[in-house]
């Protein structure tokens, strides 16, 4: 691994590199998607099984209305912010590993 240029290409085109690349990126995406899906798919379930709780008044809104109509948007912004930070760091790390 002393002369980077020829070896570099071999590593890039190797099967293990592609596998680890896709696995790491997919793991990050799935983690973010899971957070999002738990909230998105969980809300109807809460509405279904705890209707009285979700009808609690919060400043005029019902709890369910407040979550869906207002709070959901900032929640998604946070997920996307975290994803972008991490995915950029991941790409940077991948490039660094190959240059080493």
């Amino acid at each position, binding site marked *: 691994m002393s002369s980077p240029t020829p070896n570099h290409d071999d590593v*890039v*085109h190797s*099967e293990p590199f*592609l596998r680890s*690349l*896709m696995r790491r*990126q*997919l793991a990050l*995406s799935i983690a*973010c*998607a899971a957070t*999002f899906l738990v909230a*998105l*798919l969980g809300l*109807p379930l809460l*509405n*279904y099984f705890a*209707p*009285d709780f*979700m*009808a609690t*008044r919060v*400043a*005029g*809104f*019902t709890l*369910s*209305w407040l979550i*869906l*109509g*207002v709070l*959901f*948007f*900032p929640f*998604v*912004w946070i*997920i*996307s*912010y975290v*994803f*972008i930070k991490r*995915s*950029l760091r991941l*790409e*940077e790390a*991948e*490039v660094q590993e*190959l240059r080493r």
Partner: protein
Amino acid sequence: MNLHLAFFGGVDPWIFTFSFITVAVTLWMGFRSAKTSKTASDFFVAGRSVSVGWNASAISGEYLSAASFMGIAGMVMSSGYDALWYPVCYACGYLFLLLFIAGPLRRFGAYTIPDFAEGRFDSPMFRKIAVCFVLFIGFFYTMPQMKGAGVTLAYIFPGLPYWVGVVLVGAVITLNVALGGMKGITLVQAVQYWIKLFAITVPVFVLMAVVGFYNGQVGANVAPGETATAASGIQASASPSTSIERKPLVAKAPADTAWIAPFGPLTTKAVNAAAAALPVEQRATFLTEHQKPYSLVYTYSLIIALVCGTAGLPHILVRFYTNPDGVAAKKTTMWVMILIGVFYVFPPVFGVIGRNLMPELYSGVGAKGTDKVVLELPTLISAKYGVVGSILSGITCAGAFAAFMSTFSGLLVSMTGALAHDVYGRMLRPKSSSAERMVAFKLAAILIGGVAVTLGCFVEPLEINFMVGQAFAIAAASYFPLLFMSVWWRGMTMKGAATGMLTGGLCALGAAALTNLGTLALDKGPMGKIFANFAPLNGYWAEHPLLRILCEQPAIWSVPLAITLMIVVSKATSDQVPADIRMKMLVLHAPEKLGLKQEYIQDHQAGAGH
């Protein structure tokens, strides 16, 4: 008032002026930018030099259509809580796009989904199949835009028939596109976003300052379990928040408890229709047994359609390539989510205030119904503040014009491109000259514009937002599985992808069409007569409410169906996986700094020419 106004027959001069200025400015900007950039590559190169902020505004501007601007408010007013899923999922769908698709697709350098389909599977044949769905999704998407146009013009010019507005707006935009204007230039679309945001927020804040804020307006509706001393609705003095004035609801409006709570009129429609067909004594048991479980199915199917559909909209994905690099592309996506998220908080406010203060819209049908609440609501304050109400109403009309004009012209350009470039240029006359292709582009624009206008004339009884939801459902069952699976699974073959996409997409398309035909048959106006032959469908659905729900919201079965077919058929034809699949996957997933895209292009130069 005076002679001049009498000539216009009740047209409010303020509303007319604002709308006219928006149309004129949009057309002028379209023509001006068309002069400066003639080719598609001009568009893309110019796009690459714009900043994250402008690009995010442009994507948002193209995305916010008549459904977002008028339809959501109308649907929240007519259906309440359940309709909130639409704005939330329209905005959150971008997260799926960001997490799974945007990055790899941009690295691959395919500008459109058909480009990607051809490049990923080395198959010009598959490109042709993929192109069909640009047209299918496009037509479902243009119908609600046309309804938006018809409703708005019928509001500005009282007495004008709905179809005249559709034909007029359709013709103007079609001619504009055919003559080369409105090429979806970044600047025009970006400005459109800010017009729309301005046009929704300013009236909403003025209105709320006058009649009471969002939370108070929601609070004036009695939730389940609360004591309903204000059930008559005349004066909500005893409801959770006082001081909010309400007008009595009309007979057609849903009751407070059904409206404010989940599983309301939108998701229980099919079960209620089924119950109405039963003998009286069985109704109560039928409802308690089926109403809530079936609405849960409806809700989940709707969520799947909207979230997956956003990630498969052909006219949105194109814009991700106008970023200089991957970092900018990701930041752009985040800003898009923020920009459209901020916008989507406000349309439901119109729906809520409309329910409390303009309940007469519930009795209106078609162009006179709840879909026009955004346009008409600001006139409420005319009594107190005179001309301010008209000015605000003019502003929302201008926003509505910006909404359906930008989306319709964007769709028209992409559909015309598909027809002229792929169908004519590659399939019918591959050897045609560039002058012939220009003529083909113009004819295709007029043809598609004509079909869109014709379809638009039929859909007056359907809700704007509902129709856009159907376009999303078709995209979710066709393009989303294609993109998702081809990006993350290397075992996909062309045959697997094509089988899954065609079956899923066509099933969703058929289900959506059947639903619309059934609804049109119920209409009491002229459409009911035209579509009377489809009335037996409704009888069948009354006996099988679950089938009706699965037909109205097909995503819950069509998306898994498409993905399963893709896996099964790909496994069966696994010897046909493209030979250089590892290289393709590397280009999709490796960081751009490694420069693999360049390598790939050199490898492929002898291959399929562009």
